[in-house]
């Protein structure tokens, strides 16, 4: 099999992994090849609009396990391939020198045993770092079930390490991935969390959950995320809408991946990490799933309507953060700007506020953006739903035109 075909197979098998980010590491090179950029760099954008920054491949798509949702499971009859460590190095270096990529994202199916696979990954990465003096970004998957000694070794070589939690509850994991336990995954996370430093996994760890392959509610998912952020200080939890690749009585029969839901989860995840929201603010047993019509922050604001409208010139930083359409950056800008001049609606736009959402919830110097009598929940809700619909339709129109 030639290299072209191998790459095609092993990139194809890796593409459902959502994480692509190459940020958070600041590696400098004295000798050798490359460095990493703290803010991350996107080198290209794929046909689905996702950023390409890393050479995302599997070492092999052969696997002894049979996870129901996975393309590479043992019981699927697909073409299989295995790279050699030198092949991975050569592709990575050649791509990096031409500025195609920021680095390597290496994952793998399980060959023989978790330890055996981990050793292959370590061998590859260590060749890159020590023989070829590659200082670009490396993100590697830690294989659940491998020994702690290997997790330790791998962590010293890479920028980011991740172990996928896959599903939010233990029960569903048992049902769909009978060879995996969440215990295996959390013991890796725990070890990385306790040892993380400038030398060990400097860009931190992340994980991924598959959305929509099982019956769990958004509340289950968010609770799981919150607990992962809390216990292991993960940098990111990625959500990946389930793409129906396998037919199986264990799996829901859907045609389209649940992209709106995935989007809502990312929005809510953002609220947890940067906006001081808690899961219980957003969801509860009565409302276990996000509103598909309105984004989580606007939805929250409508449910706490009596706290609005907020006065831009006086309200606190935390209150600013609760306003739909205002982000961390724009909130900080407002804070410094209002010391120096009175802010008007026109100024807000320049500060990065998304006015078409924010305007419904704020006052500027006591003034609402139109007559104050329109400040009514039903009217605002209707407008927000409409806005979302228009945005979505614009996107869909584009998709229709393509087919």
């Amino acid at each position, binding site marked *: 099999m030639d290299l072209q075909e191998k790459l*095609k197979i092993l990139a194809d098998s890796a*593409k459902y992994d959502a994480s692509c980010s190459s940020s958070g590491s600041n590696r400098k090179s004295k000798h050798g*090849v490359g460095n990493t950029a703290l803010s991350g760099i996107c*080198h290209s*954008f794929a046909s689905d*609009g996702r950023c390409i920054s890393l050479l995302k491949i599997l070492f092999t798509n052969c696997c002894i396990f049979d996870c129901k949702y996975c393309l590479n499971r043992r019981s699927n009859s697909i073409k299989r391939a295995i790279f050699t460590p030198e092949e991975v190095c050569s592709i990575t270096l050649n791509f990096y020198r*031409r500025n195609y990529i920021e680095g390597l994202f290496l994952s793998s199916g399980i060959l023989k045993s978790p330890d055996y696979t981990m050793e292959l990954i370590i061998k590859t990465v260590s060749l890159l770092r020590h023989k070829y003096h590659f200082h670009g970004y490396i993100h590697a998957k830690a294989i659940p079930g491998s020994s702690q000694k290997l997790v330790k070794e791998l962590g010293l070589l890479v920028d980011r390490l991740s172990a996928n939690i896959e599903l939010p509850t233990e029960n569903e994991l048992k049902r769909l991935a009978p060879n995996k336990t969440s215990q295996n995954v959390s013991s890796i996370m725990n070890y990385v969390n306790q040892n993380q430093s400038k030398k060990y996994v400097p860009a931190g760890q992340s994980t991924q959950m598959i959305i929509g392959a099982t019956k769990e509610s958004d509340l289950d998912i968010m609770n799981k995320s919150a607990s992962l952020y809390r216990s292991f200080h993960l940098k990111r939890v990625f959500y990946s809408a389930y793409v129906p690749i396998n037919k199986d009585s264990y799996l829901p029969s859907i045609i*389209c991946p649940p992209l709106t839901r995935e989007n809502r989860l990312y929005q809510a995840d953002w609220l947890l990490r940067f906006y001081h929201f808690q899961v219980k603010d957003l969801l509860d047993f009565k409302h276990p799933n996000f509103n598909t019509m309105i984004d989580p922050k606007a939805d929250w604001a409508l449910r706490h309507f009596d706290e609005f409208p907020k006065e831009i010139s006086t309200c606190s930083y935390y209150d600013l953060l609760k306003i739909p359409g205002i982000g961390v950056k724009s909130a900080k800008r407002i804070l410094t*700007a209002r010391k120096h001049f009175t802010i008007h609606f026109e100024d807000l736009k320049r500060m990065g506020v998304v006015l078409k959402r924010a305007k419904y919830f704020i006052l500027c110097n006591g003034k609402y953006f139109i007559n104050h009598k329109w400040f009514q929940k039903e009217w605002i809700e209707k407008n927000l739903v409409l806005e979302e619909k228009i945005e979505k339709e614009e996107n869909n129109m584009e998709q229709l035109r393509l087919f």
Partner: protein
Amino acid sequence: MNHVYVYDGDYLSLLNTIFYLLKTNQKVENIKPENYSPTLFENIIHFNIPKQDHLLDQIIQSFGISVARAMYYVFLSEEEKKELLLYYFVYYALKYRKKIMYQRNLKCVREVLRISNYVLHESHKLKGFLRFQELQNHLLYAEMSPTNDILFLLSCHFSKRLKNEFWIIKDVKRKIISIYDKKKFVILSEREFKLSLEKENDQEKMIEDLWKTFYNTIGIQERKNDRCRMNFMPKKYWKYITEVRDEL
């Protein structure tokens, strides 16, 4: 008659002109680089003032490093009246000093912010989109045609990233090239340095094909979204991007 003051074309000479004009209280209608072609109603004014190297330090010290950067980025832009804009900006900056960027009610402050962000943004994008080819003797070569004059900014980036390589980056639009020799880079005009490059080469084609294979495989068909792709990677750059060039 409009009075137009001209400067050498480099940044330091522009700063010199601006500070001289402010000091001597001249009436200023426009400032332009030397090679600019005036209209009938314009009266060109040259003056030979000694260049003061310390002006850059002075700007950094009195306005702060981020203001100094923003001013330089504006200079790199293609904005029609960037020189005049910088003139007004310096006028107010001398008044407000380090607080100048908070004066958002001044149009020149808003413009400097907007334009400098735009230049910075483009240079960040091209850090990702620039594509090198390997020519004979391991020389890496890239072409681009950016809206703003970001060759210097990119050269700084790649002299760190591709530290141990020989590389050349060419701005096709401005006919200037940056040459790096594993120690430092110099920027020359095409007139000063003739490039003769042999481009076709099998090994290179093989690697480009590998990359195209990867690119075409990694997109998920079920999630195809061309609008999104175009937003992030505008068509104007495609000509020089290996993996999408053929789609044009």
